[in-house]
């Protein structure tokens, strides 16, 4: 993968014919009405940098950071521009040319080069955080004003910090689990980072749904981060290293599918081929890996998901598209179709369902104002549907929207589609009239 815009294959930039069809899909253009905050404007800036006509200035850096990376422009683009690759390359260049401030550097070192490279360490951090949250320390420090001693960035984040799950994925899922009947497919389950610490139950649900559909599920207890966080923020080196580690851990040759249940991770996971294209030892396997990578909904739809024999009672559900699932992976119809398989469930369409909720990786940290504005817009639409449940399938969206709904005083529950499916399968056993 190119580390600077100049190194990048120029035809990727040139593929943008600046027709402007992306403008109405872009949340930042919608907010500012300024060309430079639009996809085609940003691409024009990137091209000017590649042509040596524009410096990698502070404004350039700001604009690249202001982009959500939601990839809605890729859905709108008639010419198939690979915007994901462009914005990642631009951010890598910004990082190389404009060293971040010392505190941002420390942050990056701690997170991207520290925690998110070491899965065991990350879990230890999770345990510490859990202790802080459960042991009454959090409440106490808030009461006593101790939180004010935290650096400003951390203080702002502290109330947003997700509640750590009581147990992590490896405590819920055995390394190999077999379905009851015949094994129809052999798949690996990726447990993710945030998903593992916060939504390990969703990982369990995913395994259950796979088992209910004849899959043998392999779930290595310790899995490295997929590297999406790194790639999206210009840390190309660590991103490549993590990709290699994951390929070694789950050799694609031996699997029918590698299943991800987090939209953002999935989108990055299926671009290892591009990431490792110039690595002779891995290029070929990375391409094979990409061809086997599936989002859970996509995999279930493709292999024919068994309709659950029991429902969850009358339930009105609306669905929010995770950006990287919809715009990145183009998985749009499948989650909706799966939800409709559940007896008694009524699906109502959410207006602007595929408009970003403002979570966007670490965007809520780097661009809090824009992130909040998008969240308010999203929550307004959700509340107006009158649904009982909002379904979405990305940990970032989940946390962000859950926080937004709570702040708005809404009682709408947030449940991921696989969890609803898993509950329906479990209800089959509970209801005597249904035979398994």
């Amino acid at each position, binding site marked *: 993968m190119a580390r600077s815009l100049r190194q990048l294959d120029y035809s990727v930039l040139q*593929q943008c014919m*600046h027709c402007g069809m992306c403008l109405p899909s872009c949340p930042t253009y919608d907010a500012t009405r300024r060309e430079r905050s639009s996809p085609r404007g940003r691409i*024009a*800036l990137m091209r*000017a940098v590649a042509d040596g006509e524009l410096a990698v200035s502070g*404004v350039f850096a700001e604009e690249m950071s202001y982009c959500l990376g939601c990839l809605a422009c890729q859905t709108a683009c008639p010419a198939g521009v690979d915007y994901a690759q462009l914005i990642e390359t631009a951010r890598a260049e910004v990082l190389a040319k404009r060293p971040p401030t010392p505190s941002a550097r420390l942050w990056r070192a701690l997170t991207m080069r520290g925690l998110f490279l070491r899965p065991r360490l990350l879990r230890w951090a999770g345990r510490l955080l859990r202790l802080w949250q459960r042991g009454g320390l959090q409440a106490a420090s808030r009461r006593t004003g101790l939180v004010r001693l935290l650096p400003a960035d951390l203080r702002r984040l502290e109330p947003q910090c997700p509640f750590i799950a009581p147990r992590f994925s490896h405590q819920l899922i055995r390394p190999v689990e077999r379905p009851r009947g015949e094994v129809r497919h052999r798949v690996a389950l990726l447990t993710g980072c945030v998903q593992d610490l916060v939504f390990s139950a969703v990982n369990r649900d995913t395994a259950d749904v796979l088992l209910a559909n004849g899959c043998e599920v392999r779930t290595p207890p310790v899995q490295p981060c997929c590297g999406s966080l790194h790639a999206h923020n210009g840390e190309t080196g660590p991103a490549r290293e993590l990709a290699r580690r994951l390929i070694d851990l789950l050799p694609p040759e031996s699997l029918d599918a590698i299943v991800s249940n987090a939209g953002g991770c999935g989108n990055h996971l299926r671009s290892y081929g591009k990431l490792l294209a110039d690595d002779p030892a891995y290029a070929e396997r990375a391409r094979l890996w990409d061809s086997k990578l599936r989002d859970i909904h996509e995999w279930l739809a493709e292999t024919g998901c068994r309709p659950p024999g029991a429902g969850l009672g009358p339930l009105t559900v609306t669905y929010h598209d995770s950006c990287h699932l919809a715009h990145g992976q183009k998985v749009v119809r499948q989650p909706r179709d799966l939800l409709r398989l559940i007896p008694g469930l009524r699906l109502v369409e959410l207006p602007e369902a595929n408009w970003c909720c403002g979570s966007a990786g670490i965007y809520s940290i780097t661009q809090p104002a824009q992130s909040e504005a998008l969240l308010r817009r999203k929550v307004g639409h959700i509340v107006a549907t009158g649904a009982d449940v909002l379904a979405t399938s990305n940990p970032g969206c989940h946390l962000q929207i859950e926080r937004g709904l709570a702040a708005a005083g809404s009682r709408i529950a947030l449940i991921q589609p696989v969890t609803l499916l898993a509950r329906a399968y479990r209800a089959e056993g509970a209801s005597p009239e249904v035979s398994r």
Partner: protein
Amino acid sequence: MPLTESQLADLRTLVGPEHVLTSPEDLVAYGFDGTAALRQRPEAVVLPADTAQVAACVRLASEHGIPVVTRGSGTGLSGGSVPTPGSIVLCLVRMDRILAVDPANLTLRAQCGVITAAVDAEAARHGLFYPPDPGSMKVSTIGGNVAENSGGLRGLKYGVTRDYVMGLEVVMPDGRVVRLGNACVKDVAGYSMKDLFVGSEGTLGIITEVLLRLVPRPAARRTMLATYGRMEDAARTVSDIIAARIIPCTLEFLDRVTIGCVEDHARIGLPRDCEALLLMETDGHPAAVEDEARRMLEIARARGAREVRVAADEAEAARLATARRSAFSALARVRPTTILEDVTVPRDRLAEMVAAIAETAARHRLKVGTFGHMGDGNLHPTFLTDERDAEEMARVHAALEEIVDRALALGGTITGEHGVGLAKKAWLRRQVGDASHDLMRELKRALDPRGLLNPGKILD
């Protein structure tokens, strides 16, 4: 010449400092429109909020002799809003209010920066219809549509933007504000001044407000798709349909190259060995639509269509329309540079023109897909090329020259809906002749004697 600090300060006072953009990053981002290979940075970009601000900016520019390039959403395909050197870009997207819908007189009044699709959406809320539907309607502004006299897929039955403009508010090159036309269906008071500004590409005045005519929304619609072994058969189908006194709202075609690209990209199961695909749609009263659809089907069969599919419902209609709707996207991803042309010929010469384009492309070893509006003779030969390959670009230009000559020989025009701008300026005199060309120049001089509004566009 760069603007002086005091000129910039004056502009900031007029529209607010945050609406005057001068950073290199902003100037790069307004240096182009939707046209391939045209780029020029302006000196500043100004985003006014209302007519008074537009007028004040124009007055200031005129006092200092600064050229002004008006811009809507910058989706133009002839370089109309590409800045001229030393110019200020006046970008009007902030003027995006719909001012009124009048259901008694069937009109809609809007500021120039309203997005085209929003005009029709507002009309639909009143059971009404704004028919012009350029492919860019989710992005383009209504002011840009009027300035380009844009067309769309419904030209044959519903006409083009001009047919819906009843009145305009225009800021003249000296900053005067004039109101032209009104809500009267009949009005012969003096010259039809509003018509002068329709299609004037920002060279005569700045359109700040529009008064549009609406029509009742059709109650029913039927869509069908036919494939043919010969382009002439598709063209004859169209002639026969019109001779049978049916005016369909849509008659769109794709040629063989385009069908192949659509199939590569969207895999919708089109036969790759057919020469033409025709998408037909009729709309109106349900009973009339049923009758017309049946007769169109018969005509298509009689004209040797290999297959005709009639959509049973809206969902299927949308599926059938996919082939036409994805034509441009399918072509645009084949090569790095896509040049979209829009030569137009009288309807009965269309098949001949398509054949001439294919022959010219082959002779110059170029990949050109042609699609377009068969009902109104408007073609979009689309060159798939690479602007960095000078040798290939020379062949593109040579082929273009021949295509333009051929279109003119067939009694056609160099541009049916995209405008002249920069891209087609060189051919205008060839088409209209010396006398007409001189008359255009005199008109421009009369209204904009110092040549400050969009200089260098349409005319040198």
